[in-house]
């Protein structure tokens, strides 16, 4: 079927291999293309992974818009905004790291990577502050979940006396929801909030782990103009994680702040 010439010795290559070329690839170009296609396919997978959450978010946000708006007010725009800025900054430093690796600047690569990791850690630190705040306010879904407004609604309990007063959060526009309902439906918001931001944070942690390895490799001088694929792939991954946040931030923090 093929006109392959069958030699007893298959290792008749004359030219020298790049040390990073794996045995089953013919050229560095082929190896790199494979990595790039593989990474994009992986990111496609990731999009669908988060897609399921976004679908659930979309449905519940349409159903319980008021609860989502109300719950999102309890998030701190300051911390959220800061984190957005930090992540965008880290995308920049990551891009610089890839550029430095491409031009074979070893020290610069290491420095940019370290800076990216620091920014990533700052992001996670802010997330810890935000999560701690949620724990304090009993905004973590589960049996201890307590929506703040529920405290202000004295009668909305078991008695159901006709005409029980309804807590309308002061200073906000009038809500068509009472405390009981907020208690129920804001919990869905926070369930999604924690699942989405938690998974995002997990991706960041994995990203920082990958970068630790890459930084070490860069430090050891494993990369050059011909071979910097790992840096580039880590960069793609990091940008993806950033982009997820760019969607999460408005969806979770800015539900109703467009007015």
């Amino acid at each position: 079927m093929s006109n392959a010439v069958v030699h007893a010795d298959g290792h008749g290559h004359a030219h020298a291999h790049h040390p990073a070329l794996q045995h089953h690839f013919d050229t560095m170009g082929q190896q790199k293309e494979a990595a790039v296609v593989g990474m994009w396919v992986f990111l496609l997978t990731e999009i669908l992974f988060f897609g399921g959450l976004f679908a659930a978010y979309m449905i519940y946000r349409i159903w319980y818009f008021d609860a989502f708006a109300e719950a999102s007010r309890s998030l701190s725009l300051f911390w959220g905004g800061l984190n957005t800025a930090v992540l965008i900054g880290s995308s920049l430093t990551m891009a610089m790291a890839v550029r430095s690796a491409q031009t074979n600047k070893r020290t610069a690569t290491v420095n940019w990577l370290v800076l990216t990791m620091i920014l990533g850690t700052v992001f996670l630190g802010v997330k810890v502050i935000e999560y701690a705040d949620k724990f304090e306010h009993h905004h973590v879904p589960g049996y201890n979940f307590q929506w703040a407004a529920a405290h202000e609604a004295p009668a909305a309990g078991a008695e159901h006396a006709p005409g029980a007063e309804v807590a309308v959060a002061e200073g906000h526009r009038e809500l068509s929801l009472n405390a009981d309902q907020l208690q129920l439906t804001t919990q869905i918001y926070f369930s999604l909030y924690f699942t989405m931001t938690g998974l995002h944070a997990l991706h960041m942690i994995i990203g920082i782990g990958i970068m630790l390895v890459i930084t070490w490799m860069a430090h050891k001088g494993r990369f050059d103009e011909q071979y910097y694929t790992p840096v580039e792939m880590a960069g793609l991954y990091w940008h993806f994680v950033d982009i997820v946040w760019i969607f999460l931030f408005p969806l979770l923090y800015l539900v109703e702040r467009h007015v």
Partner: protein
Amino acid sequence: MKIFGIPIFPEQASTFAKDVDSLYFFIFATSAFFAVVVAIAVIYFGIRYHKTHDGEIGARIEGNLPLELLWSVIPTIIAMVMFGWGASVFYHLRRPPAEAMHIYAVGKQWMWKFQHLEGQREINELHIPAGRPIKITVSSEDVLHSLFFPAFRTKIDAIPGRYTQLWFEAQTPGSYRIFCTEYCGTNHSGMIGTVTVLEPSAYQAWLQGGGNEGSLAQRGAKLFNDLACSTCHLDTGQGRGPSLKDIVGKTVELQDGSSVMVDEGYLRESILNSQAKIVKGFQPLMPTFQGLVSEENLVALIEHVKSMSPNATTAAAAAPTATTTPAPAGEKK
């Protein structure tokens, strides 16, 4: 239908049974035709072109575009016929006639509870008259169930927090099976029952017999007072809540400017989840009854409210098969 005394075909006890079975035989005949043609071809080719000597190879035939198009287009046309026929049967199955008699069913681990408007309550038993369309509104107290009447060829899932509906018209008096077809835990296979189709006169006699605690609507009226609904929902319209007189089937305007048709789904939501859709001009004062009213009492209340709208046609009162209103489930046992 039986072969050697073994039933191999379910009884045809409803008007749908014939529709569904004709569809079944049509698809069966079409499928069998294609299966037989392919089988004959495959076997014939296997014999006729059997390899006779080593090194023999087949003729080189790469394909034939007209043939490919032919056997793409013909199945497409047949599939569209199946789709159209199936969709029309389905549409019919999903549209209860206005005059249908109404029964409520609640699925619960592991039993079916039925409530007649006249007040009779049954567990795993259902008595219905022959020759009259019957609409069953189904809900669940715990997990998913599915109410299945094989002899009537219809079923619908019972979903906690929602009302779903099915209807049928039983034709032949007799006893038929009720199954739960959605897996619901340990005793899923014990969640079976019997539907007894009676001649209309026998059905009337059955309704008269047995302890009667008043009709479903009457029970609802009592609850309406017990739960103090009546203190706000005054018929005069002067109460703190809107008057419920003659509202079923009407469209009311809501606080946020949108409007909603008053049907079972809306009533259910307004009781359990009272602040979800407030009628314009009223304050969100009503407490939620989530967890305080069982599914059974809920349908009694709804029936009571519906009885306050004597002119509303049943069709208008009929919720669409799936009320997409996500209302929290009733009490949890």
